[in-house]
């Protein structure tokens, strides 16, 4: 039934019919009938191409042991050998090629197929892992130049390391916050996995050892101290090199050779590591985690440790789902805090991603209660940092103006828009009164700060948001608060109404401030302030008397 008369069909119908025929002989018959009949060129081409295809398939089935390489181009050979699974047939081919045309390119093709077969024979079913750089040496590997990246495969990891940053000789709060969180995480961890892993604090810098006790009191079991007077200020190169040096275990493949043995670091790298998400902490964290060939979850605000099941083949090696144990889950705000993502740092086959690490946004966790009784060990790094790590020299530095802190003074003199007639004079009078007291400072209402008053140069330094008292400024509670030319809007009131004694000077008898003042002087501050100053200076008016008057 396979032979049909093509003359009965339109060419569009013949395509599917011809395709179904498997016997080249039948098709030859069909071709003949067409030639005798309508003799359409398109039909003849269609049938002939099917015949050729069937012949090709036949040829594919040929016996490779007898294949003559000289009948094929090198490109054809390359395609042909790919289908050959018989090493002996390939060897035969190779011999015939050598005896015949002896083309080196053709021999390469046959030989490489032969190698492929033999290597896969060697390790049984599983293919040996070859790093991509070695497997495909001809390709461009942007990551091949990993001169700073020294990864570990299937290493041993322990402990949670916390970089405790110091600034101007003080431990910054976020260091304590991280220690508290690390303590809590590792206590739970040790319970859950029946381990005895530690919280390790790292202190680096000049004269930082004094903080070791604090680190222990706030949660560390072990404090690693690296003292170096050249590290008084943060420097990227030195700090990251030192951190990596102490973080690597004694037997670390990329560690220092001349290291003296440390009984507290018998593993390759930390299991977990936390950095503060401060300017310096971010700088350090990125370099350290890259150097240790791991990842980094930057700016985290939440942390927990849990097992998790992952199906991503890049991480499982294609084995379907796999359970990862003891995974540090690092939550970080995205979209400016509208969404959160949880970052995991997971090993993958043939490449470990440890330490699992992140940087922590200051203020994310509470500073724990200090426990002076806690016990811990302090150890020292033996590294002698080479001079070349200190190529950067800090020539000069400045501290940003933090402004004045008005809290804690016995007397605060606050000036408002009542000074508007002569703002400079007003400030001068305020300063004179301030100087008449032993412990007084000058504050301002928001109205003065947002005004367009022009002040003379010598008082300009006193006009700034740092002196603002009220809702959007400072809240003060001095023994005596003198409000001159301030009407007492609610926004101002919340910044001062806890003061012990409030004295208001105002031209308006119905100014709001009168309602919450202990003394009210109706008058122009330009007249009242100088008289008040004089009274204080002459001893006529004494602070204790004013304060006593409140009773």
């Amino acid at each position, binding site marked *: 039934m396979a032979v049909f008369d093509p003359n009965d069909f339109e060419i569009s119908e013949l395509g599917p019919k011809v395709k179904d025929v498997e016997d080249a002989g039948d098709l030859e018959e069909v071709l003949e009938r067409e030639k005798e009949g309508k003799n359409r060129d398109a039909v003849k081409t269609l049938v002939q191409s099917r015949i050729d295809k069937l012949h090709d398939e036949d040829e594919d089935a040929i016996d490779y042991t007898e294949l003559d390489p000289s009948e094929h181009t090198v490109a054809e050979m390359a395609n042909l050998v790919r289908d050959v699974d018989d090493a002996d047939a390939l060897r035969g081919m190779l011999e015939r090629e050598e005896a015949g045309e002896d083309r080196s390119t053709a021999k390469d093709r046959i030989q490489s197929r032969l190698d492929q077969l033999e290597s896969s024979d060697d390790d049984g079913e599983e293919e040996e892992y070859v790093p991509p750089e070695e497997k495909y040496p001809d390709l461009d590997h942007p990551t091949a130049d990993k001169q700073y990246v020294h990864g570990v495969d299937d290493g041993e990891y322990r402990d949670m390391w916390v970089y405790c940053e110091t600034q101007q000789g003080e431990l910054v709060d976020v260091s304590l916050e991280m220690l508290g969180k690390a303590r809590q995480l590792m206590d739970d961890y040790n319970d859950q996995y029946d381990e005895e892993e530690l919280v390790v604090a790292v202190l680096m810098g000049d004269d930082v050892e004094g903080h070791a006790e604090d680190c222990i009191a706030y949660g560390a079991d072990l404090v690693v101290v690296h003292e170096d007077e050249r590290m008084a200020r943060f420097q990227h190169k030195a700090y990251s090199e030192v951190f990596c040096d102490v973080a690597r275990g004694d037997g670390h493949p990329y560690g220092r050779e001349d290291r003296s043995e440390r009984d507290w670091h018998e593993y390759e790298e930390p299991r977990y590591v936390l950095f503060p998400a401060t300017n310096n902490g971010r700088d350090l964290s990125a370099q350290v985690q890259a150097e240790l060939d791991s990842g980094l979850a930057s700016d985290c605000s939440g942390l927990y440790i849990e097992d998790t099941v992952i199906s991503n083949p890049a991480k499982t090696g294609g084995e379907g789902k796999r359970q990862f144990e003891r995974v540090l889950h690092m939550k970080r705000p995205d*979209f*400016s805090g*509208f969404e959160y993502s949880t970052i995991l740092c997971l090993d993958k086959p043939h490449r470990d991603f440890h330490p699992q690490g992140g940087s922590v946004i200051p203020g994310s966790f509470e500073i724990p209660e200090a426990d002076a009784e806690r016990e811990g060990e302090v150890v020292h790094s033996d590294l002698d940092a080479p001079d070349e790590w200190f190529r950067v020299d800090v020539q000069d530095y400045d501290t940003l103006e933090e402004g004045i802190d008005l809290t804690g003074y016995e007397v605060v003199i606050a000036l*408002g*828009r009542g000074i*508007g007639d*002569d703002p400079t004079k007003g400030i001068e009078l305020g300063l004179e009164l301030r100087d008449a007291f032993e412990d007084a400072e000058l504050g301002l209402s*928001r*109205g003065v700060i*947002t*005004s*367009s*008053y*022009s002040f003379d140069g010598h008082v300009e330094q006193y006009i700034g948001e740092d002196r603002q008292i009220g*809702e*959007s400024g400072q809240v003060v509670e001095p023994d005596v608060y003198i409000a001159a030319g301030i*009407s007492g*809007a*609610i*926004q101002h009131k919340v910044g001062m109404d806890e003061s012990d004694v409030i004295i208001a000077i105002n031209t308006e008898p119905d100014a*709001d401030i009168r309602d919450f003042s202990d003394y009210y002087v109706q008058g122009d501050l330009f007249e009242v302030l100088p008289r008040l100053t004089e009274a204080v200076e002459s001893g006529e008016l004494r602070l204790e008397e004013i304060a006593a008057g409140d009773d």
Partner: protein
Amino acid sequence: MTDDREHYEAVVVGCGPGGAAAAAVLADNGVETLVLERGTEAGSKNVSGGLIYAEESAPYTIDDLYPGFREQASERPITEYHIHNVAGNKVKSYDITDLHDHDTEWSDAVLRRKMDSWLERRVHERTRETGGGVVTGVHVDGLIQEDGEVKGVTCEELDPIEADLVVAADGVNSELAREANLMDWEEPEEWFQGVKAVVDLPEGAVEDRFGIGADEGAAHLFSGDLFEGVRGGGFVYTNEDTLSVGTVFHLDSLVAEEAEPHELLDALLTHPMLAEYFDGEYDELEYSAKLVPDSKKVAHTSPHRGRLVLVGDAAGQMQAQGPIIKGMNHAVTAGALAAEAFVESRARKSRKAEPTAGELYERKLHEEGVMGKLRPKRYEVAAALGERDAVTNLTDRVLESPVGRFGIKAADSLGIIESAYSSPFMSMLMPDTKTPYVTLPTVIGEALGDRVTGENTIEPPALDDRIGDLTYDVGDPHIELLDESYAASGAAVSACPVSAQDFGGGCYRSETVKTNGHEERVVSLDTQPCVECGTCAVVADTDWNHPAGNKGVEYKQG
């Protein structure tokens, strides 16, 4: 990094009635819709006088789109409508309920915090189905424009977001409309400014004092000589257990008279006519203010550019024509029509280059009669004649003359005045002069009014207390004063509803600065008390932006 941008089919900016209506129609047609609202909750930034209408002639109403609206989001249905012509303490009142009922299916008093926050929850439910939703606390501060084309929006809090449709329902001070050069803040005569007090009444007092039932509400309008000659009027609307008492004035008139908006409001609040509403007790819950576009002049006849469409106040769609004061209903219709246009243009796209969504929207605004209401033809004719000073002065003199007063009396006895007030045609052609706002009502009040005998003893709070109650976190200053000279920006000192002459606690303050021997009068700006009304954007020289999301004023009533 175009590829990395978030993309939604539609982004709606602002979750007021216009945005909510657009979102409803988009979501119902399966359009992935993201709604961005800068308040902590929708309504926290919104103020209106307080009546929302459902017009019989309108293709969409808010309760069609959001069933349950009247039961859950509004206050009282307005069942009676009065206008009072005031001259001193003589008042002549007319019942204009017929005008109110014209083309009205229903009309409810609303407070915007309650109303818009209710809408927001429904909008979120509806748009979430499409893969979108409402995100609050996001200040959309600009457009993504590439090669002159609008591609999406930029936000202060989020990364830029692309969209096939951007609905600017961001209110009267729409930053998007201005960035697209569709609207400006140049001419004070194109705007009204309204200020409002929400006043608490004891339970049951609304019914007793207004003589209405539990399911009834009243609206009262006031005009005449109680506002120092400033063109505009006042209103009292009844809510469940509170009153909305407000005054609305032409901004150019406020500026010309250097009037203080809060004092004009107080003039109404303390008028003897209102004594019976308060009964000697006055408990102000909230002071608020808002700029109102005058649709006759600024309703954009082609409110779209590329993917951007403007709806509601953002497009100037606020009909304030004499006693006809309708805005929210037009925003609802416009929002829904814009959404409809987008859905249609998207469906047609496969066939050939059809009109864009914006062009379809513009066509629908005309075909559905919205534009005809916002910009009545009759007004344009009347304005050509009626707003000339000479004509105004002449009419005013005639009206004030004995002859004119005789005419008024005669007209009243024939019922002509009441029917004229009740005529929507009359209202729509009222020119913006003193004649209808001040002169005529004053003459009517004097000639025909009865003396009000009640004594109003209430004391509204002073401005600093009103501001104090609105204390909030403004963040960084959002308005920059570009020219601090009094000539350029001094008008804001009076016109700003939270500033006043000789008041140091407001936004704008007049100051005299001495430099090198000569004195100069300047203004200074503190944005902390700002209620974001936009007045200073028109009357002063500023760079005006809204504060960041969640920052700035937060209205509890609205």
